[in-house]
């Protein structure tokens, strides 16, 4: 039997969720210990005897037995989940209650509740993301720290502060709560940021970035499984992730260097994922609200559908950016809009649009603002101006991959 990819990481989130249902959120650390124990056991037995036919079932059985032992031994000394207090007291109901916590639909709901709890409004967004990765995706603090280029100790502190808030809530977020919709939009936002983090850099390691995108997609799919959460905006979010992720294989080349969209080898794009994105986008097209997720997904779809840069429907893309500027204006959106305008009307118009960005000051640390100026100056033959823009962009680079890319662009100006 082969070990399926990321088995332990996948199982970690499910098992922690089921155990938290029994132990209560204030005993999250206990739930994590039980899972860790089950993994240790698996490691010891499987490495000699081989992986069993149903590894998930095996791990679940170990976790159930441990949970049963712990509740029996500690029910007088410790309080477990308040909702289950009565049920856990009696031997008649204890075992069935534990069985139930590990039933698939219950586990799924528990994971959702955990996800909603992690996106608590009193937690900063970066803590929400770290908590989702830690408790639901099975990432260790050190792994999250390196993905986000933060020190390990700082990340541990961030996670433990977040868990303290979770524990203080005494119970997980109730999916029938009146605040469901506003919390749902916080969840979507956190998943969006998680995806963006993976897609747009921070970390230089390609593998890590692809994994973060993959986890964001997995969590969004989980969200779609809950009828109440499967709203048009959630479909749009899932669509935009799939449509962007479809281009990931072309975005970074074999040597780990960044390829701009305009130069990508489109045959490397993941067609299957793009099709899934389009299907999700179709499903998102109901209701009256056109959210930023809808518009971003539509822009991504226009790129995915185009066989080449020249055959791209830039007019439609500019129109979508115009609408995005109304719904969710930001200097980065304006920057992308200017680049699309340059594709239709030429570099002069693009530069004009770049200079007209209302609060361009907010882009002063963003390397792709001078890089865009550089591209357009290069296109109209202003090599000196282009080179100096690329050099200032390289100075702002946030990681070695970006720096190499921008330095390469600066060198192009020198040789032409």
């Amino acid at each position, binding site marked *: 039997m082969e*070990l399926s990819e*990321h*088995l*332990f*990481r996948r*199982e*970690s989130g499910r098992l922690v969720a089921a155990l938290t249902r029994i132990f209560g959120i204030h005993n999250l650390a206990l739930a994590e210990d039980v899972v*860790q124990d089950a*993994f*240790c056991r*698996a*490691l*010891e*037995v*499987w*490495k*000699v*005897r*081989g*992986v069993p036919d149903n590894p998930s079932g095996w791990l679940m059985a170990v976790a159930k037995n441990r949970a049963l032992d712990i509740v029996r031994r500690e029910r007088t000394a410790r309080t477990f989940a308040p909702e289950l207090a009565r049920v856990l007291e009696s031997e008649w109901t204890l075992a069935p209650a534990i069985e139930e916590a590990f039933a698939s639909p219950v586990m799924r709901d528990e994971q959702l509740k955990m996800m909603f709890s992690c996106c608590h409004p009193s937690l900063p967004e970066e803590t929400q993301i770290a908590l989702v990765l830690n408790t639901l995706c*099975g*990432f*260790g603090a*050190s*792994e999250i720290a390196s993905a986000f280029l933060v020190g390990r100790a700082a990340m541990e502190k961030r996670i433990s502060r977040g868990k303290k808030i979770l524990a203080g809530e005494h119970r997980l977020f109730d999916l029938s709560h009146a605040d469901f919709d506003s919390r749902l939009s916080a969840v979507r936002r956190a998943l969006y940021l998680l995806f963006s983090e993976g897609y747009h850099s921070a970390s230089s390691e390609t593998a890590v970035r692809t994994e973060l995108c993959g986890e964001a997609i997995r969590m969004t799919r989980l969200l779609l499984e809950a009828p109440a959460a499967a709203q048009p905006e959630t479909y749009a979010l899932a669509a935009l992730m799939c449509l962007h992720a479809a281009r990931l294989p072309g975005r970074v080349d074999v040597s780990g260097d960044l390829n701009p969209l305009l130069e990508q080898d489109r045959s490397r794009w993941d067609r299957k994922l793009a099709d899934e994105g389009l299907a999700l986008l179709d499903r998102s097209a109901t209701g009256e609200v056109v959210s930023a997720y809808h518009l971003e997904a539509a822009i991504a779809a226009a790129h995915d559908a185009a066989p080449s840069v020249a055959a791209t429907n830039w007019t439609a893309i500019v129109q979508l950016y115009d609408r995005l500027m109304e719904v969710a204006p930001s200097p980065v959106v304006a920057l992308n809009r200017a680049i699309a305008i340059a594709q239709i009307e030429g570099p002069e118009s693009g530069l004009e649009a770049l200079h007209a960005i209302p609060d361009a000051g907010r882009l002063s640390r963003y390397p792709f603002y001078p890089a865009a100026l550089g591209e357009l100056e290069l296109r109209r033959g202003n090599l000196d101006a282009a080179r100096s823009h690329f050099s200032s962009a390289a100075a702002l680079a946030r990681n070695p991959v970006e720096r190499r890319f921008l330095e390469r662009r600066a060198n192009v100006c020198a040789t032409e």
Partner: protein
Amino acid sequence: MSQFLYIYRVTAQSRQEAMGTPERAQQSMQRWMKWMADLDAKGHLKDRGQPLENTGKVVRGQNAVVDGPYTEAKDLVGGYTIVEARDIDQAAELSLGCPILAGGGSVEVRPVMKMDM
């Protein structure tokens, strides 16, 4: 070909090391599977053996039955495997690929005594 017993000795620290995060567990699992499959493919794997619980009892006589060994003990026997090899040198060499070594554990290689009768 002679038979040899591999006795896997682990320290609490090496167990912890292998289990740092789910992904770390996954990687150590994969290394073990690959190593075992290699032994098997080359015809050295006689008996995959068994893993052992970490604690039990230590019996030293009628009135000397105690719980143990303790997990704090320096190294615990975590399990065993029986391999076939030409000689002790080959058996020792084959054990060099064992992932337990990377985590700070050790493999004790012992020839199974031949009964020439």
